């Protein structure tokens, strides 16, 4: 294909995927996690449907443990773009005091996986855009762009629908749905270069800054609010850190960095020696097949 650059090829592919979804699927929604991939996905949606506003709502499954700067950024972007935002919080889990300090893997299951399934059931969405990329993790490397989910939101990795050329089979029966990944073929570097090229707004946490942190088991955790639990002997320290991925602040590690501009981030990413998911504590529970297992149970 005669594209000016590989980024233009990836952009055209993502726009095509989004348009197919909106043209063929009955109740689409975009899962908006506020991170850089979501920011790119939203930017692509604005381009894909211009001059029309993207004809679907955004949905944020809020665990109530997100960095506060994420929530501020989310509300600002929603106001700027005029997109409809659905915020979903697992109220039962909230009432039961489920939190990442005491409940470990159960926290992720209840406040993220279960909450997502409940949210999708509540609103009856049949197609859900997600910002996952195949370069993130081994089981994701095998997932289709249109990833079929049964009525229990489960993924069957051994029996995926064949997906040839750019012909997507979007047919689902009642209760079933598809997860759609327009950024499947993007790498972390592509995401950063595209943010740089297009000037896409991102959460300030991505930029290095002096922050109040705790170092624990090789991870740098941000003391984001007074709910943070210090282990015996732990003292908060000041350090210049930034975050390569964003999620729940007690589960997301930062990295020491001086990269405080987008150019510096891109330069740093090009020389990166660890993949970005190492700063996500969530992947390490249960060994190398843990992401696949969670996905089979309905996690994004």
């Amino acid at each position, binding site marked *: *294909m*005669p*594209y*000016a*650059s*590989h*980024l*233009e*090829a*990836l952009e*055209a592919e993502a*726009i*095509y995927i989004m*348009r197919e979804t909106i*043209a063929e699927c009955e109740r689409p929604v975009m899962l908006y996690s506020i991170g850089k991939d979501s920011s790119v996905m939203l930017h692509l949606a*604005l*381009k*894909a*449907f*211009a*001059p*029309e*506003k993207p004809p679907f709502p955004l949905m944020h499954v809020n665990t109530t443990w997100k960095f506060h700067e994420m929530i501020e950024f989310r509300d600002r972007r929603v106001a700027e773009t005029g997109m409809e935002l659905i915020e979903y919080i697992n109220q039962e889990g909230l009432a039961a005091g489920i939190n990442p300090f005491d409940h470990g893997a159960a926290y992720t299951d209840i406040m993220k996986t279960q909450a997502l399934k409940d949210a999708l059931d509540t609103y009856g969405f049949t197609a859900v855009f997600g910002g996952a990329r*195949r*370069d993130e993790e*081994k*089981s*994701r*490397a*095998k997932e289709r762009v249109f990833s079929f989910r049964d*009525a229990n939101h489960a993924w069957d*990795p*051994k029996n*995926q629908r*064949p997906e*040839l*050329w*750019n*012909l997507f*089979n979007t*047919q*689902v*029966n*009642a*209760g079933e749905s598809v997860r759609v990944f327009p950024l*499947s*073929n993007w790498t972390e*570097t592509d995401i950063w*270069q595209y943010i*740089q090229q297009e000037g896409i707004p991102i959460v300030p946490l991505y930029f290095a800054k002096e922050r109040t942190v705790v170092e624990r088991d090789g991870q740098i955790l941000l003391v984001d609010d007074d709910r943070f639990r210090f282990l015996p002997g732990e003292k908060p320290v000041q350090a210049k850190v930034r975050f390569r991925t964003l999620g729940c602040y007690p589960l997301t590690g930062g990295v020491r960095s001086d990269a405080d501009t987008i*150019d510096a981030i891109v*330069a740093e990413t090009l*020389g*990166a*020696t*660890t*993949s970005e998911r190492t700063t996500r504590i969530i992947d390490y529970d249960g060994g*190398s*097949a843990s992401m*696949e297992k969670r996905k089979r149970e309905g996690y994004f």
Partner: protein
Amino acid sequence: MASWQHSTNVEREQRSLLRFVTCGSVDDGKSTLIGHMLYDAKLIFADQAQALELDSQAGSAGEGKLDYALLLDGLAAEREQGITIDVAYRYFSTEQRSFIVADCPGHEEYTRNMAVGASNSELAVILVDATKGLLSQTYRHVRICALVGIRHYVFAVNKMDLVDYDQAVFEKIEADIATLMEEHASLSCAVIPTSAREGDNVTATSARMPWYTGEALLPYLEQVDVGTSSGEQGFTLPVQRVCRPDPSFRGYEGTVATGSIRVGDTVRVLPSGTSSKVASVLVAGEPADAATQGQAVTLTLADELDISRGCVLERESAAQASTLFVTTLLWMDDAPLVAGKNYLFKLATQTVPGTIYEITHKVDATTGKRLAAKSVAKNEICSCRVSLGRQLVFEPFAQNRTLGSLILIDRITNATAAAGTITHKLSRSDNLTYHQMDVTRQLREEALGQRARTLWFTGLSGSGKSTLANAVEQRLHAQGVHTMLLDGDNVRLGLNRNLGFTEADRIENIRRIAEVAKLMNDAGLVVLTSFISPFASDRRRAAEIIGQDSFVEVYVSTPLEVCEQRDVKGLYAKARACEIPNFTGISSPYEPPERPDIVIDTSTESLEDAAERIVGMVLGDA
């Protein structure tokens, strides 16, 4: 030789993208080859390398060797069984290019997954084990890759270390490859001797094979020109959707399939044949003067025409509309293809129901020989003739990948049953002989896109059977399901007018209803019957006539007191006054079903909820 230093931003922006597929079995060292490319080139991250070393210790590679394949086999089942089931995508870049690698399973059972990886690739790297030479799977892989449109091939004759880097072994295999490619004369081809395990000719030219003067694999991939055919192609744009934010703007969204277009150009709309001039062009949402192949655009036209998703805008192309064509299919469904079956054909942005009316022949994937065939099994290739219910706009695949490729969707299971490419159009005069076949219930069901069955509503008079059956039928009809409701009104007054209320007549009444329901099921319809049918033996006979698989017993269990209280037709009052003899529930028993498929109590569940529940069951397991 490429430098592995990371390049600066400016250079990266101008890099091209190459999508390639790797074919071969795990035994050929296919995953090892890609793993080694990434590892050698430091293109895997430190934590992945560390995980790899840990996995290798635990795994089968042994003797402290790295098992590079573990980098790629991502699914738990694959790691357990040591095989590749599904295509895995890997990403890396050098100064020259960004690469998307589709690493495909080699095993015949997973041919369809290989086709998935190949279909979006511009080039295929075919692994050949130097100790074994060409295998039947080599021929199959090339044929599948060629079928889905790959024009450029690199054969990596691997495991050269195991044949002592012997030139003679390589040259013998090279000659076999030349013979193999004779059949695919229009495709480009290179042959490189490698050792994926030892890293010979993978990223750098090997000193151990001085007799080989060509490039190593990676430098070759960095430079190979995979430019698509001539720039002389006409313009085609399948319309994905219409953008109408307000009455003043009407834009047609889509990705340019071939050619290019400028503001002011005249375009024709297919299949309608109307035309207009391009008034404006947006490329990825930004105003532009022109757009070219592969770009995601929004076009507005000078005239208001009737254009919707599925239409094709074209200029000087060979796109045409027809209901008849010949296609080459790769069958992918577990259920075999039989002529006469009805499918949804999805091509570009069009989805049209149609029938494969004739299987012309099968193609042996290894030898390429044509074989006569009545049916086609999973992973087999065939040529067949298709007749559609509506016109489809297409071009032969050789000219237009987008307008020449299609998938078949099973109308009942929704499975992607096959992938195909259009060879050419057929006209009515092309000796159209419909395949000898019986039009069976299955074929009728498929034509209607539904599974026929009988919902047998049973319950007391006044329990709400008919109201419920009506509500269910309305909902099914609204969802496009073809239905028929049988109740007292249309059966007792007509077909069964001559029957009274004796035991013999009662049995005959149910028998006739069941036989009519069965005929309608055979016609592909979903039948709803609403009769008190109080006796278990009668319902059992009905189930036997209709067939247990099609018989769905819906027990409307509303309690007698509630039914009597409602007494819509005043029948209970008459029965209590002994004006009606043998009235079910009063003077004659009602035998509740022992194992109904669904139970509805209309005194505790709303009509809407109950109807939705039944509809959900009917559509859910369709």
